[in-house]
């Protein structure tokens, strides 16, 4: 039971539940823990277990399908599909750079040292790429 792949969300968090679901699943997809051909629980089951509205889970699945991670078919389980890594556009890279700067500024403002930040980013990149 403890080895089963799970997704956890915090309903009290300021981050919306739908965003937490997308982020959590994307981490598992990028890291390969959710492998090609894997099926995800039904929208109803996932919504029940996470205590969120069915539309929240359905929207999260659609977002990941739009990114190319999932294949959705009415009446069937969402399935992880083969996805080509896209070439990011300049606009996308600028947007991520902006978001990263904002996040780094917030972390520095809270007193997290720059060295710790660098280490965390390196570990996260290595974990997700492996």
């Amino acid at each position, binding site marked *: 039971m403890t080895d*089963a792949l799970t997704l956890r969300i915090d*309903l009290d968090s300021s981050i919306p539940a739908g965003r937490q679901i997308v982020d959590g699943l994307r981490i598992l997809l990028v890291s390969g823990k959710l492998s090609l051909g894997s099926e995800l629980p039904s929208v109803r089951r996932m919504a029940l277990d996470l205590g969120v509205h069915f539309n929240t889970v359905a929207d999260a699945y659609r977002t990941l399908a739009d990114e190319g991670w999932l294949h959705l078919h009415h009446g069937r389980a969402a399935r992880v599909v083969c996805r080509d890594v896209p070439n990011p556009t300049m606009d996308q890279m600028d947007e991520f750079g902006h978001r990263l700067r904002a996040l780094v500024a917030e972390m520095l403002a809270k007193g997290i040292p720059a060295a710790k930040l660098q280490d965390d980013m390196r570990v996260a990149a290595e974990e997700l790429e492996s």
Partner: protein
Amino acid sequence: MKAEVVTLVLHLMFVAVIFQFTPLITRRGIFFSATVDPDFPRSADGRRVLRSYRWQAALWAVLAIGVQLVLPPRHPLTAMLLPMLLMIIGSAFSYWLKFREVHTHYGQRRPEIRQAELSVPPAGERFNAWLWVPPFAALALTAAYLQLHWSQLPERFPVHWGADGQPNRWSSREPLTVFAPVLIGAAMNLFMLGLAWLFSQLSRNTIMRRVTVRLLEVLLYPLTLTFIIVALLPFGLVVPVWLIPAIMLTCVAGLIFWSYRQIVAPALADAVPDPQSDSYWKAGMFYYNPNDPAIFVAKRVGIGYTVNFANKMCWLVLAGILLLGLLPAALGILAGRK
């Protein structure tokens, strides 16, 4: 004192004992349905609250037994219901007072962390259909045996026994009365199967779901055995009067003990979190959360489920459960009139 009154008083005392222990059958970090520090129930304040509730529950029990002894109403149904209702409502009121006290003065707030298993189907959702086959098959075999040995059945046989163990109602050899125990047994099994299926489909994957579904699955066996014994009694099967209650009591007590160990075991209880804010628990007993799609939610006290009263579907599900539950009762009444 009449044997019936003694039986009713014993029933009241049995329920009174359950009320004494009810607050202890709860998950770690929950006390009188309020979220508290896991060590609070063992603290001086925690013990004082429990002691105070137990005194109040005991007083309600004494009052109910007094009503039972002093004012025995003529109608047997009223005689049974009135003292029992008095004790249940009184103890529930005391419980609500303690919930308010604990929540107001010692309550804590924990983040609502929820978890979904991503394997399909999740391990907790697997429905052990094969466990349900033997009881139904045994009832079908009993029905076949009754049919094959129809001529050996006596023209009249007892169908009801009093508290003294002596038969007090008889019935003639007719299909409905002969097959009634098998049919009621099948209807009871169907009721429990329906409950287990509903819990496995409409509740979150927590330790409570696994415990409750397993409880229903295992309880099916002594229940089926009881109905088979009753169905074979007209053949002259001699069974001590205490045997059936002893089988049921032993099994129920064993299952409650096993469930209690599972629910209160810290490692298991914390394995799949399902925290909810106390504000969703009205009077500590009724769950009302419009944002939660779950219809069944694990109770905060005791073993089993309650419904999410904010979900309109719960009324439909409750009506279905009531109809399923009425089926064995209706069969019993029909057979009793023959």
